[in-house]
């Protein structure tokens, strides 16, 4: 076995964000630390008549600013988000991409849950209203959940290992773990992340059957994880992308190590079986910490899944207690997504971005709209907490039953 290969570690060297509370990593982080909620009534055409009223919408995003015309006509909004965030992450990483470089050294991994619903709806409406000849050829690629991996790879000329993870909401974490394994095995860099755009009529109809969805019409009360009055979650659009590289190689080229991907594990406990998710999530946390060689008491901050369904919130609090023991009641727990909504796979990617920034900046962002916690957790509310976290645990569960845990370590420690 090659000794140097065994020591490879995946580090985040670039972050790019398109979120309801900010387009661009700096705007996102500033808004996240302020803890302001941007949840708002859905005012998009064709979306007004549904019982789902509140969402986290990405406003002020001009796709033409990030995506070439030729690609714009061929892609859905979820891919526009992905191309924009991936572009920002690449710029942030300073990864040299030159014609002489090895194109097989850079891979792309994305996660997607709903695919290109808005694009698909437009074309299917053409199909039944005007006939098959009126369906454009880009329908064949734009709706597909793999579209973003393909477009990022084509744009950059990245011919390294490419993949799409379809694993429910934790897909954002699972994609990072998949990419980290690629890096450990020898791939120079992987562009990885997840973005979703499920706030369009057809996509919204697909979500209406979820019993976990909040139907509260007041934005401030619609998504209140860990609160007594928790009544479900609010969906959102957006996501985050990263550049992962081998830590030592990245340091040698002078890159800023924004965080290290230290451990990950995933389990499955069945759709909407929230009581059972306790055991699955606990197992994922335990395995991720073991991989990261991180004792429970070394976890300084938890970015919670925070579904805001009482049974699920209780299971998450208990899973933390099962693994962290007494430390579960002391560790800072936060859920910034209470102010932006859950962008499905994009949500776990956004939480990872926030976790990396929290480690880097020594600041734990608060849980918006929260004024207390009904469980034995130290939920960060009100204001961001200045501290010096060195390890962050990011948790995610999906409505279809997946549970994942990801451990990030601070980038400045070697």
């Amino acid at each position, binding site marked *: 076995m090659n000794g140097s290969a065994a020591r490879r570690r995946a580090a985040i060297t670039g972050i790019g964000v398109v979120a309801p509370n900010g387009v661009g990593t700096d705007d996102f982080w500033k808004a996240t630390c302020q803890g302001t909620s941007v949840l708002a009534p859905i005012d998009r055409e064709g979306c007004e008549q549904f019982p789902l009223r509140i969402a986290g919408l990405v406003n002020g995003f001009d796709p033409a600013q990030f995506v*070439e*015309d*030729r*690609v*714009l*006509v*061929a892609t859905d909004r979820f891919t526009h988000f992905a191309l924009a965030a991936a572009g920002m992450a690449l710029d942030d990483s300073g990864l040299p991409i030159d014609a002489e470089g090895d194109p097989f050294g850079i891979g792309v991994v994305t996660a997607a849950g709903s695919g290109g619903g808005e694009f698909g709806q437009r074309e299917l409406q053409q199909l039944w209203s005007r006939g098959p*000849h*009126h369906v*454009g*050829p*880009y329908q*064949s*690629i734009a709706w597909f959940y793999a579209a973003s991996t393909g477009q990022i790879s084509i744009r950059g000329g990245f011919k390294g290992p490419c993949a799409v993870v379809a694993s429910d909401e934790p897909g954002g974490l699972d994609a990072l773990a998949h990419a980290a394994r690629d890096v450990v095995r020898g791939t120079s860099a992987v562009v990885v992340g997840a973005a979703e755009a499920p706030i369009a009529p057809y996509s919204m109809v697909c979500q209406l059957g979820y019993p976990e969805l909040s139907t509260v019409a007041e934005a401030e009360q619609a998504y209140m994880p860990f609160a007594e009055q928790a009544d479900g979650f609010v969906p959102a659009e957006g996501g985050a992308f990263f550049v992962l590289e081998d830590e030592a190689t990245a340091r040698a080229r002078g890159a800023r190590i924004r965080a290290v991907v230290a451990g990950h594990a995933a389990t499955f406990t069945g759709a909407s079986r929230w009581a059972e998710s306790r055991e699955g999530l606990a197992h994922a946390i335990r395995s991720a910490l073991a991989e990261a060689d991180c004792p429970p008491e070394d976890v300084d901050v938890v970015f919670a899944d925070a579904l805001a369904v009482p049974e699920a919130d209780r299971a998450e609090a208990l899973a933390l207690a099962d693994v962290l023991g007494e430390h579960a009641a002391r560790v800072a727990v936060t859920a910034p997504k209470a102010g932006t909504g859950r962008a499905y796979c994009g949500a776990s990617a956004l939480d990872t971005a926030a976790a990396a920034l929290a480690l880097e900046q020594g600041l734990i962002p608060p849980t918006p709209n929260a004024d207390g916690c009904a469980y034995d957790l130290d939920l960060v509310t009100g204001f961001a907490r200045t501290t010096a976290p060195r390890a962050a645990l990011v948790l995610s569960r999906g409505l279809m039953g997946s549970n994942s845990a990801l451990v990030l370590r601070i980038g400045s420690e070697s």
Partner: protein
Amino acid sequence: MTVELTSTDLATLLKQKAGVTVSPLDLDRPGATFEDFGVDSLGLLAVVGELENRHGRSMTSAETSKSSAEFLQAVNLSLKEGS
């Protein structure tokens, strides 16, 4: 009266359907290929689909055109035949 597709019309369609900006003058350049302009096969298919819907007839011969001159010729031939 026969309708004819001009290079100006084609430039407009390429912009709308394939997202590619190209001037009619460049389309008229001898030997100019769609590949030169960055129009891929799906983009060309989108343009052909629009023309077929507009004129109510099949134009499959245009789909395989490599150059803009070939394309215009194939489309205009099928327009003439159908008139």
